[in-house]
């Protein structure tokens, strides 16, 4: 019975903590959809892959969202045709590299200021590295969910497409409006997204605002449901495997990093408050293990895997997860074994 109580408490606390940020993320996503012209967006983003990844990682300073709010924004970036490097960089770094989290970490770790800067630095290193790895794939659509690829449409082929590949855009499910030969508008997509594809028609501000709210409600309903499931799974795992068990896994210089990363993954705590959670371990764990918690937690955790599944296919999430875990582990290990 107590376990059920604990589980329900954990479930609701995760949900209450994440929901405002999801709402914020959905809002930013809707703003991006309706108020930002993709042509201009693409023109601003640097052509160099490394710079693009870095730019994506730093977008968090404009959209202070945590790890549940960043997914709708990253998804919108992808559908807007931003390079994969930008979207992945944003996805991994934005929850940490943003003013709110920086300030919260600074408040919590004021007597260890290096934690604050290393947290940002490590996050940027990991995010840019993974973004570069993902940008090796020019056409990222095989790794995205089908619903998303449908919205994105075909990219402009880099090489001349063989003739047989030219298939009608009508060869997928849905309701379409044939405009002129070759121009097809999908009608069963949400109205705001339909509108966004018809870039020519710029409706008045009031209409656009109403559409923005409509789109927010739509996305929130979709992602909110997923978040509920994710929170429930995270709460269940935390009841089944108590924190003490995870922490007792390791007190050594190597095992303590593993323990803290496992803890970060399981507790799924929001990046805006996780520094205060980590502070309670500051006296018993090395700086390396704390950093592992602070860097890895916001990138991927149990709760937001369900949200990630609305964007990526399982294979891509596996790569994201394993690469992020390995890179964080590597950096934390170097920190623990070679510095203090």
């Amino acid at each position, binding site marked *: 019975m107590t376990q059920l109580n604990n589980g329900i408490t954990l479930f609701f606390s995760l949900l209450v903590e994440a929901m405002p940020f999801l709402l914020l993320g959905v809002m930013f996503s809707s703003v991006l959809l309706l108020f930002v012209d993709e042509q201009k967006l693409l023109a601003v983003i640097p052509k160099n892959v490394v710079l693009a990844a870095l730019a994506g990682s730093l977008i968090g300073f404009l959209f202070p969202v945590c790890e549940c709010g960043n997914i709708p924004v990253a998804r919108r970036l992808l559908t807007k045709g931003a390079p994969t490097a930008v979207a992945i960089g944003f996805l991994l770094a934005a929850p940490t590299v943003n003013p709110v989290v920086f300030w919260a970490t600074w408040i919590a770790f004021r007597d260890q200021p290096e934690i604050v800067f290393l947290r940002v630095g490590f996050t940027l290193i990991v995010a840019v590295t993974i973004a570069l790895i993902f940008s090796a794939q020019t056409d990222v659509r095989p790794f995205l969910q089908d619903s998303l690829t449908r919205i994105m449409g075909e990219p402009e082929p880099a090489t001349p497409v063989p003739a047989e590949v030219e298939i009608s855009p009508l060869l997928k499910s849905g309701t379409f409006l044939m405009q002129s030969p070759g121009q097809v508008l999908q009608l069963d997509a949400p109205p705001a997204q339909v509108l966004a594809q018809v870039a020519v028609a710029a409706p008045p501000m009031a209409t656009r605002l109403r559409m923005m709210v409509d789109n927010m409600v739509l996305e929130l309903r979709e992602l909110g449901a997923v978040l509920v499931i994710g929170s429930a799974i995270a709460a269940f795992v935390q009841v089944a495997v108590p924190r003490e068990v995870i922490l007792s896994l390791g007190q050594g210089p190597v095992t303590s990093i593993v323990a803290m990363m496992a803890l970060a993954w399981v507790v799924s705590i929001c990046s805006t408050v996780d520094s205060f959670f980590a502070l309670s371990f500051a006296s018993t*764990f090395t700086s390396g293990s704390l950093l592992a918690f602070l860097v890895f937690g916001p990138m991927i955790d149990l709760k937001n895997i369900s949200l990630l599944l609305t964007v990526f296919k399982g294979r891509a999430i596996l790569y994201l997860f394993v690469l992020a875990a*390995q890179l964080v582990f590597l950096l934390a290990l170097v920190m623990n074994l070679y510095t203090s």
Partner: protein
Amino acid sequence: MARRRSRRSRSQPLDRLAIMIIAGLSLALGLLILSGDHATARVRDFTWQDRQVGAEDQAFLLTFSRPMDVASVEKNLTLDPPLPGKVSWAGRRMAYTLTQPLPYGETFSVGLKGARDRYAATANGSSRFEPFQSQFETRPRAFLYIGAEGDEANRLALADLSRQERTILTPKNLSVMAFKPYPLGDKVLFSASDTSQAGSLLNQQIYTVTTGLTPRPPVDFAAQRPPLWQQLWPQKKAAPSGETALVLDNSTYQNLKFDLSADGQTIVVQRVNQQNPADFGPWVVRQGSPPQPIETEPGGDFLIAPDSQSLLLLQGQGTAIIDLGSEKARGPNQPLDFLPNYGRVLDLAADGSAAAMVNFNQDDPEKRFTESLFLVTNQGREEELLQVSGAIVDAQFDPTRQILYVLASELVKAPPDADTLQSEDAYAEQPLLLAITLADAKASPLLRLPQQQRIHMSVAPDGRSLLIDLDGQTTPEGKTGAPIIWNLPLVHPAVSSDVAKSAEGADTTPSTAAAEASNASSMPTVTDPEEFPFSGLQATWLP
């Protein structure tokens, strides 16, 4: 459909690259783990590093870079000269809490060699610890007094016993009446009248003067850190001694008595309107805001409580406790509390837990014409410590709050005096210096003092000595000599087991009459009273 299936089955560039990198990283991680631990544990932070600490600092913190093997640190930590204390741990932080007040005017070195971190201890590995060596010092042993002779006459002077030098702080034209040092000893608040002006005695103004001492207090780890730009800002250079600044003038109001709060932020002054003597009462002066009257019933003597937030003010027959809360109060202040039995507050323990108060025993006919000293705690306990037939002049807590030093007088038969007419039952007041252990309320006299009215006492902040100033010897012509300042070293039996030596008891020499009587285990004794070669009044230790 066929196309999508073929896309899924085909291995994408990302698949190949990701798997390659995952394999590479796994290899790197394995090698890194196999290479072993190369980090050296060290002390990250020592809160008293090169700082000057005082009696209010009771513990220092050592923060290590990684979790330490507790036993190895406690075994290897050295303090020279040794300071008894207790060790407690919170993760990577170790607190060392001193059990006795720090002796002033000394330099201590702290060292730690050969400690092990917890990982090395569990793996039974070798010690990888960067040896730590640091030092800190305590504030100088110094006291302030109002000079009595020559150049020093009526001027505030500082006697630094650690450096064996004396400095006159205030200018010649100011005749100092009273003073109170600021908590770090870098400044002194004093009231003085300008002798170059007519009617000067009533025209006290309140000033501050710098002592020339540079406090380097340890960073309070519990307090809010100053913003980063303030930490990086170059530290202000210490002001040379003797820089006076006016705090409160006397243009409309006369300043009578003042007190300074323990945090040095609030001054309370008893003021009376020059034109309208009915306009009389305490005023509060804070840094950066104009003086404001405290709206309350007029009162007498007062004292700011150690929390700097409340004022103990004598009102009528009792003592009112008035809120000094920093927000500007409008309308009359209701006292927070009123203690009807106590007509005087002599001292408050530095942590505010207890007060020494005097009951004039007006309500009890059997105790009429006696005074009682009470210990009143913030738990509401009131305990009578002493009842005397004369007067209770002063009482001060020892820094450990275990002993109360009391100046009191008993009525004795006046010695026959050939020159004057005396009734058969003439009485005189015999002043005594007593020590009372607060645990068992046991009083024992330390010294019998010469029979005179004006005696001033000051307990050193480290509790290791006591200053007393007395009027000088009366000459045959009836003139009183220059006042003498005595330093009475206090020997605590716990600290040293030196046998008390008694001094010869001339008229103005304190005598250790009852040194033998004070054989209670924690009762201090006075040894080798020392007379300073200069004279002065109100000798008071710097905090």
